């Protein structure tokens, strides 16, 4: 890699995460608080790698019951029928609306899995001190951050199906245990993306002197 421009951290400057004001902290080990908005200044988010790992692993564990357990239980005239996320996709596909089946498949199955895999890859690359593909990895992180909310889709679908189809005793739909795990996957991966500090992706390429912790 060619010699890059001097980074703010190398110049002893730190940017406030809330109001983006760049300031020169009095001490390198204790950056203190932002003079404008009072936010605590940090060179890098505190314990970013550890927190992200914990949340990603928790999300990966929840991902299994989220897909294996039923999200909906349809009761028609006394007979009950469980429905998983994949079952919902298959139902949409066979009932003729394959574009919607594709949307649900992407949002509920592929995006959560993709997010977990992407975050694990980013974490490993930071911990191995990789200096390659900085731009690509940053783009991947932005994608994870942007796309994360869309996997809430299935939670909303289930909620409104349950809320509407209450035609007792003819037919009713109740939520299954899978919904909770699925919602947990979405929330945990969103928190994980928030805990991850994208500046870490560049630290191996541009080391800064005052690293601590």
């Amino acid at each position, binding site marked *: 890699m060619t010699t890059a421009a001097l980074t703010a951290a190398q110049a002893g*400057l730190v940017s406030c995460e*809330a*109001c*983006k*004001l*760049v*300031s020169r902290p009095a001490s390198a080990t204790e950056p203190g*608080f*932002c*003079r*404008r*908005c*009072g*936010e605590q200044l940090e060179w890098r988010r505190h314990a970013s790698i550890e927190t992200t790992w914990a949340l990603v692993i928790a999300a990966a564990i929840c991902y299994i019951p989220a897909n294996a357990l039923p999200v909906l239980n349809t009761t028609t005239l006394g007979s009950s029928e469980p429905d998983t996320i994949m079952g*919902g996709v298959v*139902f*949409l596909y066979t*009932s003729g*609306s394959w574009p*919607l089946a594709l*949307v*649900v498949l992407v949002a509920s199955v592929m995006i959560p899995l993709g997010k977990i895999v992407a975050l694990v890859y980013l974490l490993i690359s930071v911990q191995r001190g990789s200096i390659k593909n900085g731009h690509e990895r940053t783009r991947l992180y932005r994608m994870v951050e942007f796309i994360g*909310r*869309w996997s*809430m*889709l*299935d*939670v*909303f*679908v*289930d*909620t*409104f*199906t*349950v*809320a*509407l*189809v*209450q*035609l007792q005793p*003819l*037919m009713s739909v*109740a*939520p299954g245990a899978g*919904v*909770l795990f699925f*919602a947990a996957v979405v*929330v945990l991966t*969103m928190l994980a993306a*928030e805990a991850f500090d994208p500046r870490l992706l560049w630290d191996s390429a541009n080391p800064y002197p005052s690293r601590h912790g």
Partner: protein
Amino acid sequence: MRCGATLARQPSGPSDLPLALTVTAAIVFIIANTSPLMDLSAVGRTASTTIVGGAYQMWLEDEKITGVLVAFCAVIAPGSYLAFMLTLLLASRRSPAPFWISEMLRWVEHFKTWSMLEVMLLGILVALIKIAELATVDPGIGMYAVGGLVLLIPAILVTFDDRELWQRLEWVDGETPPPPDAEVSR
């Protein structure tokens, strides 16, 4: 000076457009939450639901955490976002802008992440199509209101310039804000 034409204008001076949009969005938000989203009818029976009704039904069905999460992402987060934006846009018309705005700006960022109206709209549409097999479903006023909000909220985001507001803010350490050109360059 000579002909009276506008030479230069403050890039985005007093934030009137975001304020107008926020007021509109707040009104639409109230409509979206009070009127039914859709009506379902099958063999002589009808049912209708609102956004809160959906979350409450989840609560009743013993999925309390999911119900709270849905209520948070669909009602509390966007509602708080609009309420905070309204307060801080009104307060920021004072000069220098009062300090407590900075606390609100920080909260607004979080509510923005967790407000998922557009995801909810798509979710409702998928649910509608799933149910359409079994019964007749008619979208209600609430549905159109949600559609309006999905357009209004990004419009607020685009017109609201938080960096400009940060620059006008009163600093924590009691100093008045320096003129913009004295700021550390980014």
